[in-house]
């Protein structure tokens, strides 16, 4: 999906369906190669039982300002409608306080995307992904 925003004339973004942790339902998440970590809606992390740990506090600078949080590794499953899906242990930022205007769920580069191969075909609106070949 390249646009889930109400006004289709705005800049297109890449949205892919994912499963997070043990939650039974799928969620849309935006592919953001500019973000270091995965940052999901606070309610999703709460439903999984993850809370902010002040002992491991870091600050990440985002377009909505600095966000203080702690790092957790959470299982993220990229759902495929052709071939096998991919389950990736991804680095999530569990925020201390989520900004009220936080738009959606983001999949970051260093924390997730870097762990597998991926490619985008905008003409077909497809997101290809796969595990690194075994050496």
């Amino acid at each position, binding site marked *: *999906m390249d*646009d*889930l*925003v*109400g006004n*289709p004339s705005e800049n297109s973004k890449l*949205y892919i*369906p994912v499963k997070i942790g043990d*939650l*039974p*339902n*799928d*969620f*849309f998440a935006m592919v953001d190669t500019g973000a*270091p*970590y995965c940052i999901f*809606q606070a*309610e*999703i992390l709460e*439903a999984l039982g993850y809370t902010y740990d002040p*002992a*491991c*506090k*870091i*600050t*990440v*600078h985002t377009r909505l300002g600095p966000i203080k949080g702690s*790092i*957790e*590794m959470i299982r993220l*499953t990229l*759902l*495929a*409608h*052709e*071939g*096998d*899906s*991919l*389950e*990736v*242990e991804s*680095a999530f930022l569990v925020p201390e306080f989520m900004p009220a*205007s936080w*738009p*959606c769920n983001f999949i*970051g*580069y*260093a*924390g997730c995307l870097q*762990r*597998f191969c991926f490619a985008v075909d905008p003409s077909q609106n497809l997101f290809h992904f796969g*595990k*690194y070949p075994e050496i």
Partner: protein
Amino acid sequence: MPELLTRSENTALRLSPGCGMPWTQRINEFANPDRQAIIHSPRNYGAFRSNKKIETVFDTNVSISRVEPLLFTTELPFFQFLQPIGDKYRDLILYGQIRTLLSEGMISKAIKVLLEARTSGYPLSERLQRLYTILYRQSAVRKPITSAPRTKEAAWIKNNWDAYRGKWVAILDDQAVASGCTLKEVLAEVKKKQLSRSPIVHRIQ
């Protein structure tokens, strides 16, 4: 040079008690080897001998070896109190370094630094050990799961954005099966319905 410095039990530096001559005279003798004086013999002090040289051997090695660098010894009792402070300081420095790396998104480098700290023999504190355990879990596993394309659900979101703004919705194909103000109530409602296929849940901003 005779032994002038010694280390007492209290590790204090002091002159050897055996020096009988004035200090200035002893320095003059040492600085002027032409004065064929044997240091330990006060009778020969100051006498020049023209035809017979008496070599004076200055056993400096002996005296130097008796003076130990006190600042770097670890045998002194008060250093045992400094050891835990040193460990905490080292942990603080390492933690600050890891935090800076993680704030910049440099996960691989943070893992490398933690690995080096572990292999160097220094014990990691609990919080650093926890960070290491969290960051080191990296894996990508193929799962034989196939999901239907969510094109219809995405189209529904685009078309019904205004009506459900600020709400969580669960969408299956081209209809909303549940909606609410919190994720918890939407998930509960979906579970109650026991649908054959899992809907996709999204918060419309």
